[in-house]
């Protein structure tokens, strides 16, 4: 099936053959994968999808992979959970949690994008993959490269704490720590990507890589019984995930797999790094870069490449956006853990906190269905809760000590 038209510039519309390139040579606009929906229509059906594997690859026809899946066979198809306890707590009728905190193999939605990028790298004949990352992306690239028996180079700023890189180092990549300011390291990595022509997942492979995020959106709709929810709240860093979930929904509509689309897409960001939500609140398409200062490290992108498209997604869908303070982020993490038994990382705390505020402000009506995108696992960064949690009851090893403590507890709560 000839399903790909190659790449297309999102700004000037110029076409390019499918290749490991990411910017338009004419206008420097970002390139995007272009599909032949006329070919896909009728071939991709609810039934064909249901007959696929229980992973993101049940949507392979709608991803930019032409050969066999090379790595990450078990990525995706994560649980969509009816979060009734949380809904009760927030006074809402219907809340769902799309739980990518248990995405296989590295516990964040980044496995979706990386599985596509690394598979595509193999398809183009590369033997080396690379990324510059301080967290989830580094974990995932190193893991998938190991699985695919590819060499991997992971670039990190030299001042990153050692603990953060262990979950990457374990897969035996070549880790390169670069001394310098964030800006210098960032620019160097761009130059390295330009010079070495490895499969730099979020640089020259970005058009393919970012398509992987669509699977998060496809799954939500399928798991809701091929219905679109009223609202989806999405944590934003570079702004790609929210844009691609929206693209996924529109593709399902184009292919006739769903009838109407009534979903409003809402952006969630930290107050200490929220340039996309600021655009939405100020109703301007001008993105003003910020210096990140937030505990939500996995969302700390100050000049997001897809910021403009994320803003447009919220606008076009009729959604909005909300910032969360560090305090609210921790509250959000604790709320989800306490009500649903799900331990998410700070990005999930941002989503829960932003959703709560949007509900309280009446932007999201309490009687409409809401999906929260929980995109990463809390066990990776327990330090964010370090000073917030403590053992409640401390006793000597005797039954009488416990009896007394229990009586105290009961008198406190009665």
């Amino acid at each position, binding site marked *: 099936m000839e399903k790909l038209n190659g790449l297309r510039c999102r*700004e000037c519309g110029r076409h390019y053959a499918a290749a490991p390139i*990411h*910017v338009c040579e*004419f*206008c*420097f*606009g970002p390139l995007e994968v272009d599909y032949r929906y006329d070919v896909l229509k009728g071939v991709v059906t609810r039934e064909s999808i249901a007959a696929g594997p229980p992973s993101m690859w049940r949507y392979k026809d709608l991803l930019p992979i032409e050969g066999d899946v090379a790595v990450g066979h078990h990525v995706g198809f994560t649980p969509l959970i009816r979060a009734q306890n949380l809904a009760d707590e927030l006074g809402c009728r219907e809340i769902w949690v799309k739980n990518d905190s248990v995405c296989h193999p590295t516990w964040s939605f980044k496995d979706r994008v990386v599985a596509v990028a690394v598979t595509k790298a193999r398809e183009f004949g590369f033997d080396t993959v690379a*990324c*510059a*990352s*301080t*967290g*989830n*992306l580094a974990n995932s690239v190193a893991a998938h490269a190991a699985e695919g028996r590819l060499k991997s180079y992971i*670039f990190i*700023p030299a001042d990153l704490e050692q603990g953060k890189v262990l979950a990457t180092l374990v897969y035996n990549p070549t880790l390169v720590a670069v001394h310098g300011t*964030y*800006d210098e*390291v*960032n*620019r160097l*990595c*761009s*130059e390295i*990507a*330009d010079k070495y022509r490895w499969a730099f997942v*979020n*640089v020259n492979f*970005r058009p393919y890589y970012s398509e992987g995020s669509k699977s998060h959106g496809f799954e939500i709709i399928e798991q809701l019984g091929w219905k679109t929810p009223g609202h989806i709240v999405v944590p934003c*860093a*570079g702004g790609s995930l929210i844009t691609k979930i929206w693209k996924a929904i529109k593709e399902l509509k184009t292919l006739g797999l769903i009838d109407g689309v009534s979903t409003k897409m809402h952006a969630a960001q930290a107050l200490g790094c929220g340039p996309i939500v600021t655009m939405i609140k100020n109703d301007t398409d*001008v993105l*003003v*870069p910020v210096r990140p200062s937030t505990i939500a*490290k*996995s*969302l*700390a*992108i*100050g*000049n*997001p*490449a897809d910021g403009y498209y994320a803003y447009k997604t919220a606008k076009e869908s009729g959604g909005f956006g909300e910032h969360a303070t560090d305090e609210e982020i921790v509250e959000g993490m604790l709320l989800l853990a306490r009500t649903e038994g799900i331990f998410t990382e700070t990005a999930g705390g941002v989503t829960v906190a932003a959703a709560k505020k949007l509900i309280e402000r009446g932007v999201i009506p309490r009687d409409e269905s809401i999906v929260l995108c929980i995109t990463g696992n809390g066990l990776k960064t327990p330090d964010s809760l370090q000073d917030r949690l403590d053992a409640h009851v401390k006793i000597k090893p005797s039954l009488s000590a416990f009896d007394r403590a229990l009586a105290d507890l009961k008198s406190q709560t009665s």
Partner: protein
Amino acid sequence: MARLRVRLTFPPALIQEPIVYRLVKDFDIVINIRRAEVKADHGWIALELEADERALERGVKWLKDKGVQVDPIERDVIVP
């Protein structure tokens, strides 16, 4: 010759200054503007710079000292 594809973001105070002109004249950098957006209080330019490596380094440093944000064309290459 080295080349650099960058996106320059200008804070409001610099919008009216002839920054690009000085980049060309004082640092002997060849520029090629591809896309830009300039509003009353904000602006950015996506362009290619070409010069010998030292001139490029000096030019970029001068831009940063002026308060212009200099990002690679991809903007954030480092992703969390």
